[in-house]
């Protein structure tokens, strides 16, 4: 079984400042890692994913994340945020060789301060 921990439930950031949303996971098997974004009243949208290969992955809207196996982390970063980045962000994992069901963290609400 897997688990995902997002320690920060809310992160306020000034517009154009950098941001890092933290994610740690636990698993006894090889996993894929994901970040999803949920805008108000909308469905979940995939931001980026790590399957294998380079540990630095780039996603949509200028976001990137780095997979750190030794620290079992997959933190999400953006160098300069915009008002439009205000949303809920979920980190998730799935087994590499399973049925692809996702295990999500509890989410981090990113609020951009003008």
């Amino acid at each position: 079984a897997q688990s995902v921990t997002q320690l920060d439930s809310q992160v306020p950031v000034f517009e154009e400042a950098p941001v890092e949303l933290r994610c740690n996971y636990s698993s006894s098997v090889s996993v894929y890692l994901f970040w999803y974004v949920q805008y108000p009243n909308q469905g979940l949208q995939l931001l980026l994913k790590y399957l294998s290969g380079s540990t630095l992955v780039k996603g949509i809207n200028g976001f990137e994340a780095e997979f750190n196996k030794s620290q079992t982390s997959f933190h999400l970063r953006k160098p300069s945020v915009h008002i439009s980045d205000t949303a809920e962000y979920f980190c998730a994992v799935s087994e590499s060789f399973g049925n692809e069901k996702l295990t999500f963290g509890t989410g981090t609400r990113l609020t951009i301060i003008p």
Partner: protein
Amino acid sequence: GAGVSQSPRYKVAKRGQDVALRCDPISGHVSLFWYQQALGQGPEFLTYFQNEAQLDKSGLPSDRFFAERPEGSVSTLKIQRTQQEDSAVYLCASSLRDDQYNEQFFGPGTRLTVL
């Protein structure tokens, strides 16, 4: 619209009523997932279909929850004798399942409120 659709978007039920939630996946998608998202929480896996076969129902919280996908396309999640703790957003996702990894595309969800 080529995305995943769900209906109804909002459902209010009295405790003890039965409800049925519908998911229309993206055409041609083989895999279909149901998740439950309680207020302030991340989505939690309920069940998984590959075509019409329900291959994993380990996340269904009780025998009051039942899901089907009889023709391998549209899926229905049924909750019998609803309880207040069933109040949540129910998300459906579909994927192709033709390669090493297949992205799950999520619908907008059905918000169920049990009074």
